[in-house]
C-alpha cells in the first residue's frame, strides 16, 4: 500500500499554514503524499471569452508531469476552472485514473464577498482533494450527506460534509479512516 501521490501546487500557490495537509489526508488515505511546486504556463489553457481556465486541458498537462515512481497526481490551483459545458468546477478527476485538479478559487469566502477565512478555505480544500482522489480510486458520488464523496454543486454542500469517507465508501476503497479530532 505504499503508493506515492503527488500534490502539485501550481505556480507557487501554497499557503504556509497548510503544512499539515499530508498528515490530514493520511487520516483516511494510507499513502505517501509528496508536495510538489509546479510551474505551469496557464495561459495555454486560458479562455479569453470566459476568463477561466480549461480544467481538462490542465489535467492532461499534469498527467504529463507525473513523476515516474508516482501513482497519482492532483493539481491544486487558485485560478477559476471550467469545462466547456459547465460554468465552473470545484475540481475534476479521472474516474479510476491517475490525475485530478482542484481549484480553490470558489472555495474561498472572498469570492462570495465574505471576509477571508483561512481555516474554512483549508477545510474545504482538504475535502475537495479527498473527494477528487476518491474519484481516482473509482468512487462515485455518495448519498450520505456527511460523506466526503457527497456531490457538491455549491459550496455550502462542502461545509456540510466531513473530511471523511463514510463506512460504505471506506469499504469500497478498502481503507479505514481514523476518527479526526480537529
Amino acid at each position, binding site marked *: 500500500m505504499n503508493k506515492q501521490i503527488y500534490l502539485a501546487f501550481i505556480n507557487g500557490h501554497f499557503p504556509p499554514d497548510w503544512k499539515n495537509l499530508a498528515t490530514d489526508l493520511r487520516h483516511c488515505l494510507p499513502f505517501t503524499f509528496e508536495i510538489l511546486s509546479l510551474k505551469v504556463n496557464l495561459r495555454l489553457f486560458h479562455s479569453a471569452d470566459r476568463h477561466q481556465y480549461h480544467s481538462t486541458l490542465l489535467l492532461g498537462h499534469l498527467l504529463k508531469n507525473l513523476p515516474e515512481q508516482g501513482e497519482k497526481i492532483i493539481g491544486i490551483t487558485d485560478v477559476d476552472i471550467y469545462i466547456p459545458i459547465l460554468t465552473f468546477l470545484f475540481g475534476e478527476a479521472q474516474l479510476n485514473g491517475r490525475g485530478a485538479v482542484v481549484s480553490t478559487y470558489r472555495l474561498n469566502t472572498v469570492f462570495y464577498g465574505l471576509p477571508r477565512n483561512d481555516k474554512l478555505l483549508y477545510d474545504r480544500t482538504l475535502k475537495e482533494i479527498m473527494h477528487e482522489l476518491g474519484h481516482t480510486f473509482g468512487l462515485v458520488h455518495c448519498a450520505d*450527506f456527511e460523506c466526503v464523496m457527497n*456531490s457538491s454543486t455549491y459550496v455550502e454542500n462542502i461545509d456540510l460534509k466531513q473530511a471523511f469517507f463514510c463506512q460504505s465508501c471506506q469499504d469500497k476503497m478498502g481503507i479505514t479512516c481514523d476518527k479526526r479530532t480537529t
Partner: protein
Amino acid sequence: MKPYKILIVDDELSVRTSLNEWFLEDGFKVETAESAEDALYKMHRGPFDLILLDIKMPGMDGITLQKKIKEIDADVVIIIMTAYASVETAVEALKLGAFDYVTKPFDPDDLSRLVRNALKQKELADENIQLKEKITELAGVSNMVGESEGMKRVLEMVDTVAETDSTVLIRGESGTGKELIARAIHTRSKRRYFPIVAVNCGAIPETLLESELFGHEKGAFTGAQYRRKGKIELANGGTLFLDEIGDISSQMQVDLLRVIESKRFTRVGGGDEIQVDFRLICATNKNLEKLVEEEIFREDLYYRINVFTIFIPPLRERRSDILLLTEFFIQKYSRTMGKPVKKISAAAQEILLSHPWPGNVRELENAIERAMVVGKHSEIMSEDLPLHINEQEKKKDNFIKLDDLEKQHIEKIIAEANGNITRAASLLGIDRVTLYNKIKKYGIKR
C-alpha cells in the same frame, strides 16, 4: 438504488465527454450519441431513463428527432440542451413534451437539480402506477377476506378521515406501510390534485432539516447562492407528510409547532412571512407518550398532531393477510421480473404463516422478491425463502409440544395402516381402546 441510464446526444465531442464524465461520477450509466441516427440506433437497444438532447445538430433537426424518440419510448424523459440563440426551438420542444431545457454552458447546480427533478418526475409517474397497485392491494385485502379485522378497521379510518382536513397521526412498527396509508389518505382527499410532500425527519441531519423544511433565501448562509423552496412551501395546497416525527430536535419541534398553528413561516435568512395551506399527516414508530413523559417531545406539539390516530397492526397480528399479500407480491414480481412463478408450495406457506415478521409487510415483500429471484421452479419452495426465515421455522420445530408430536405420529401411522385401527394400534404398541381415546382427544380424522 437503481442506476439510471442516461443518453447524451450532441455532435460536439467535448460536450459528450465532459457530460459523460460528470454523470459517471454521479453514479449513472451513460451512453453517448454523436448524431440523430446514432441516437435512434441506441434508443432501439435502449431503454434509457433520461435523454439530454442537443436541439441543434447537423442533419435531422432536434424537433424531428425528439418526435422519433418519443415514438420509440413515450416514457423517456427528455431534457433539451440549447445554445442561447435557439431558445425559441427549445420552447417548441417543451410543447412537444420535453421535460425542460438548459442553456449551454450549464451551471453545475442547475444541471444536477434539473436531472434530479426530471428523474423524480419519472419515478413519480412510475410510483403512481405502483401506488395504484398498492391501494388496490389494500382495498383488496379488505374486500376479499374481511378476516383481518385490524386492516379493515384501518381502511375504514382512512376513508373517514380522508374526507376531512384533520391532522392525522399514523402509528405502527416499521415496515407496516405508514407512508402508504398517508398516500392513500391524500389520494382520497380533496387535496389530491395538489402534491403530497414527504419528509423523513429521521433520515436528514439536523443541520439540513431546517433548510429542507423551510427553504432558504439566497445568501442565507455561506455559499447559499440560490433561493430554495422548502418542503413546507412545496406542499402548499396539498399534504405534508412528516415521517419519524418522534425523531426531531426540540428546536425543530418549536419551529414546527409555530407553522402548524399559524400556517405561516419564513425561509431561513428571509424576512417575509409566507402563508401556506397544507394538511398535516405525521407518522412514528416511537412511543410518543413516553417521549412526552420524558420531556423529549413537547406536550403541546403532541396534542397538535395527535388529533386522529390510525394504528396499523403489525403483520403478526393479522396473519390471515399473509397469504393474500404473498399472492399479491408473487403476481407483482412475476410481472416485473418476467418469471412465470404462479404458486407457493404448502411447506413454504407453512413457514410464512409461522414466521413472526418483525419487519412486517416490507419483510414479507423482500422475502417473496428474494424467493422469486433465486427460485428455479414455477412454484416457490421453502428453500427459496431467505435463510433467517427458514431458521426460525427450524427453531420452532425444536420446541414442538409433546402432544402435537404424538398427534402427528398417530396420524402418520393410521395413514400407513390405511385406516385399519387394529393394525395401527399394534404398530404403535398400544391397545385399540387407548388408540380410540387418543383419536377422540386429538380430533384425528380417519
